[in-house]
């Protein structure tokens, strides 16, 4: 099994404005651990750096600093080609992530062939059908020759999941996998991901801004705010006992019919007072400096 250790990840983007160049730090010393069988949810507002982290993990972007180490159980590091096989991504928009010109079969057969998972045409076809059945797209023989436009959004996202698993993924990065789907279908897709995770002992990074599903479908939640981790801990602890102002604001903003009539209620925190200088770590039970290398982060005292 494979785990991912992300240490002090930094990503800077250069913004050119006329002759002026400014640096935007999208990700600032973020450390994460993805271990087999566990789901880590990454939550935060748009622009907080969630997707940048996903892109770095899938090697679509290079980090400015920091390391991403992928290790097997026996302690060996995973080499480059194996990395591309074992770390796979499911994208947000199943309408854009599948090629409209190709059949569903092609989408799943291609990663199988590229990564030498199957040799012969017949074998590939069998594997494709097997994959489709695993993601509950049945009858598989009927689905395989179709093109993406003939499937519903939920079905397409299932194809995207099958495609990610086809080369033998061990680590799954899911960037808002259900936000574009109808609500009644979301649960089915999330449950499917949960089942596949148990079957294959996958390490999952679930990127979302939906706190309710983050809580129910992950073991651990990491809250990002302006590129830094401001709170981390077990899913229930972070949602039910938030410490950082931003997490409190998020928890209060999510719709919750158990507390009706709160639409006009004021924010629980002063928005201008939200900063990202410190991170509350529920595992350690203390505040630590944020935006500095993990080994150097000192405990800080902070009222919460």
């Amino acid at each position, binding site marked *: 099994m494979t785990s991912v250790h992300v240490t002090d990840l930094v990503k800077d983007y250069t913004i050119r404005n006329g002759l002026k160049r400014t640096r935007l730090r999208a990700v600032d010393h973020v450390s994460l651990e993805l271990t087999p069988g566990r789901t880590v949810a990454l939550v935060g507002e748009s622009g907080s750096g969630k997707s940048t982290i996903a892109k770095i993990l899938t090697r679509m972007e290079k980090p400015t600093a920091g390391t991403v180490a992928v290790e097997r159980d026996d302690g060996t590091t995973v080499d480059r080609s194996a990395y591309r096989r074992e770390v796979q991504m499911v994208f947000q928009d199943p309408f854009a992530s599948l090629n409209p010109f190709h059949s569903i079969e092609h989408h799943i057969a291609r990663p199988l062939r590229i990564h030498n998972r199957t040799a012969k045409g017949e074998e590939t076809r069998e594997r494709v059908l097997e994959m489709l059945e695993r993601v509950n797209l049945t009858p598989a023989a009927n689905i395989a020759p179709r093109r993406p436009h003939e499937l519903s959004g939920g079905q397409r996202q299932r194809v995207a999941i099958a495609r990610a698993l086809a080369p033998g993924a061990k680590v799954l990065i899911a960037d808002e996998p259900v936000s574009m789907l109808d609500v009644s279908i979301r649960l089915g897709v999330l449950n499917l991901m949960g089942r596949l995770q148990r079957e294959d002992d996958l390490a999952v990074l679930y990127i979302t801004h939906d706190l309710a599903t983050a809580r129910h479908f992950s073991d651990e939640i990491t809250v990002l705010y302006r590129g830094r981790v401001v709170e981390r801990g077990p899913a229930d602890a972070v949602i039910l006992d938030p410490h950082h102002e931003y997490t409190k604001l998020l928890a209060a903003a999510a719709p*919750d019919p158990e507390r009706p009539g709160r639409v006009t209620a004021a924010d629980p925190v002063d928005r201008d007072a939200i900063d990202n200088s410190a991170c509350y770590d529920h595992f350690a039970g203390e505040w630590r400096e944020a935006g500095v290398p993990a080994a150097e982060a000192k405990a800080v005292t902070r009222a919460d």
Partner: protein
Amino acid sequence: MTAADNRRDEAVLTEPALTEPVLTVEDLTVVYEVEQPVTAVKDASLTLHRGEILGLAGESGCGKTTLAYAVNRLHRPPARISSGRITFHDKDGDDVDILALEDAELRAFRWDKLSMVFQGAMNALNPVTTVRAQLKDTLLAHRPRMSRKEVRERSEEVLRRVGVDPGRLGSYPHELSGGMRQRVMIAMAMLLEPQIMIMDEPTTALDVVVQRDILREIVRLRDELDFAVVFITHDLPLLLEISDRIAVMLEGEIVELETAEKLYREARHPYTRKLLGSFPSLSGERGAFIRTGVDETAPGEETPEATTPTVPAQAPTEERA
């Protein structure tokens, strides 16, 4: 305490104290006249009361947008209203039969009495003109005699109302953030002080924090200006929080129309219960869903797609939120 707060409180205790109706839809049927005609809205009846927020829930393809468009007569062929009546009850006592309006009357009616915040409102602004020009265009189309000064003042006022700095009047849509564009759209919809605003998924794709801001704005404006809102979304927890009453649509039919409180506590229709069961609860027990309408004994095997209305394979509809 405002009138709206009262309404909310009473809704919890007893039946809501409903005011006079502002819009009545009776047995509305909308058909898409394609090769195999599709009845997108079937015999839908509902009454919208003055100052009320009516939620319209259901998944994509259930006909909620078609219904909203038909009320405004914005539907285009092949969609056709095959039967039904839509009556608008004006503030000054006149009843307007919307389906009988002539073109010119219809143009005058739209936006002035009933405005709409369209789905994907973030992208509904014209990208090549400024916010100022778009507000001015709307104002002058309906109030041709307005002076420049009045146009400017009104534009600034509506922006201020929705919480956008009037200094952004000169901005092009791409210079605004998603939440700001959404606010500008809402400002545009309330520009002429309509009595009804139809909002089609106004907060989908926005951050929860920004979404909360917009909702707060809508409720506040409703309390101030007392317009009625039809709020269309598939986000049921959100509707339960802000609506007075909620209509649930399934395959073109309104299967349940109840006060938010009642719908939440004692939903009658199995589909409503299923919808309620699709949302994990934020503050409840871990593994608890908003209302346990779905059998959760076998998580992972649950495939709601199998039980939801099946879309014919040849006609995949937008399922996109």
